[in-house]
């Protein structure tokens, strides 16, 4: 059987909220609620899209091995990442690399920026014997469109957010991982430079054969990245499909709401319809076990949506949607 690069099976993460005084009673929030998907063992781009609080970053952290799921399993190349031995864990840490949202926080301000590249070279024994360190660093910086002489020896505060994010990509270029988990890599980058970062992630797929799990709140960014999109709402994936199809013809009412909220960058095509938003009460925002995750805000909610979470319905052409409207 063909081993999947990554398989996420029935993963659940429960967080405790409130109840600090012991009087209010503990509440539990399922940040990630029974999520299952896989990434095939060939260069692929998959986007996880959802609003803040949908659980996408929690899922990313679990995949990176940073927080343990409450239940379910995450397998990388067929091995459960939470029961790896030391050697396997080291390989996993090399094969799966992260790009985070904030390119300001990932650097130690006391060290020069090229240290992140040097440490990676030494730690993972990259290019042993064949090249010297300087050559490797210069090559990696050039590969991400930076001029080595502008970067080497500088401190993080001397560089812009875009440059810092590119150095993280240069590090990935050096390490040549099998999977990049990119959690909102462009949301803090100026709009005029975002495309350059996304283009690099795409080029890694072509040149290095690296797959990318791209996490974003912005459907347009996932559309630009291409590949498959999984839409998440309150800890569950509710729609799957090709990036193009999801944007052109969103099926789930939640995805439709997301798509219709994207501001069109054209002053001649302004929003006409008034968006009325159902305000959820605090009680409603706390997880409800047995209803559809979008029930409270859904304009088409049916009686059965309250009683159970709809299963995935196959719509053909690789599209799946978890909504009773399509049953």
């Amino acid at each position, binding site marked *: 059987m063909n081993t999947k690069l990554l398989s996420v099976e029935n993963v659940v993460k429960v967080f405790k909220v409130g109840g600090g005084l012991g009087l209010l009673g503990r509440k539990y929030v399922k940040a990630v609620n029974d999520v299952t998907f896989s990434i095939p063992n060939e260069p692929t781009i998959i986007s996880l899209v959802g609003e803040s609080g949908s659980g996408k970053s929690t899922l990313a952290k679990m995949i990176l091995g940073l927080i343990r799921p409450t239940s379910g399993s995450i397998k990388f190349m067929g091995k459960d990442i939470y029961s790896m031995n030391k050697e396997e864990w080291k390989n996993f840490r090399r094969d799966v690399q992260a790009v985070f949202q904030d390119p300001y926080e990932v650097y130690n301000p006391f060290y020069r920026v090229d240290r992140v590249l040097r440490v990676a070279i030494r730690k993972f024994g990259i290019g042993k014997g064949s090249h010297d360190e300087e050559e490797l660093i210069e090559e990696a910086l050039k590969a991400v469109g930076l001029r080595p002489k502008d970067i080497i020896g500088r401190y993080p505060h001397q560089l812009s957010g875009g440059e810092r994010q590119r150095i993280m990509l240069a590090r990935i270029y050096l390490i040549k991982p099998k999977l990049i988990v990119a959690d909102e890599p462009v949301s803090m980058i100026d709009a005029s*430079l975002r495309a350059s970062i996304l283009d690099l992630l795409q080029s890694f797929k072509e040149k290095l054969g690296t797959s990318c799990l791209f996490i974003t709140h912005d459907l*347009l960014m996932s559309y630009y990245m291409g590949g498959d999109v999984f839409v998440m709402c309150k800890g569950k994936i509710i729609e799957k499909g090709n990036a193009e199809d999801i944007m052109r013809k969103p099926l789930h009412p939640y995805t439709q709401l997301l798509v219709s909220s994207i501001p069109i960058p*054209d002053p001649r095509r302004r929003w006409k319809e008034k968006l009325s938003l159902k305000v959820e009460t605090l009680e409603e925002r706390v997880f409800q076990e047995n209803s559809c995750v979008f029930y409270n805000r859904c304009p088409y909610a049916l009686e059965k949506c309250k009683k159970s979470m709809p299963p995935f319905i196959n719509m053909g052409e690789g599209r799946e949607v978890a909504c009773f409207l399509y049953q």
Partner: protein
Amino acid sequence: MTLLAVRDLRIYYKSILGDYKVVDGVSFKVDENEIFGIAGESGCGKSTLVEGILRLIRPPGYIKSGEIIFKGRNILQLDEESLRKIRWKEISYIPQGSMSSLNPVMRIEDQIIDAILTHTNISKKEAKEMVPELLKKVGLPPDCGNLYPCELSGGMKQRVIIAMAVALMPSLVIADEPTTALDLVIQKVILQSLINLNKEYKIAIVLVSHDMAVHAQTTNRMAIMYAGKIVEIGSTEEIFYDPLHPYTRGLVNAIPSLEKKKLKYIPGISPSPLNWPPGCRFHPRCPYAIEICRNEEPKLKEIEPGRFVACHQWGD
């Protein structure tokens, strides 16, 4: 009618390395009843500019020179007491990230009442009666005043802030990135409530945002800032359909949309306010730069009525 006119405003920050010229000679006008947008990338000085309009610059920052004429009076020459009367009652300000500055242990209602009482002489009872109406204005349930901030979502908190900002019916609201930390769905709701306040209550709005799509949906006219200067002013439609400055063109090309699959980006990086490039500040990144761009700084010229551009290509 001109409501606010800023003339050659310069706001610098002192440092041991010299002055950071964050806002360096900015002029523009805001008319009554309009939504005026200020766009530009991070670090271009847009937030400092709007803080300067309300004289909220703190040391080491200082206003070097310029004029800020609001309803015929120069804000820079007012004493503290007259300035206090203008703030909130005449011009209110929604700072970036202000929704996280609500007092967590005070009910929403009391915080709104506080804002009203600080700037007017009405009684507490009257102020309290205003609250439900204000909340309704921004699309919140009128009875949510007795909730605490932690019981509201980010979008609701931001609308509470907007309700406070319009409590005294100012003629101008300055909103600095009011939707930046919010989801797109909420962003749409917030922008629509701003548009609604402008249409129904004739409140002029200065909207600062790095997001061009936000401007496309919201503003009537807009200014593009780059490296501490305004490089172009025009109606929002002109900016999007007929951008004049090469930087504006780059910005417009970098906007993602459904129709544009391939995005362009502006090569290079924004310069530092400590050391702006000589000549035109955009010349190191400009594909059309010629000799004069490297030596001489272009002035913001009105090439058609209401249409300003600072570029040597658009000369006399």
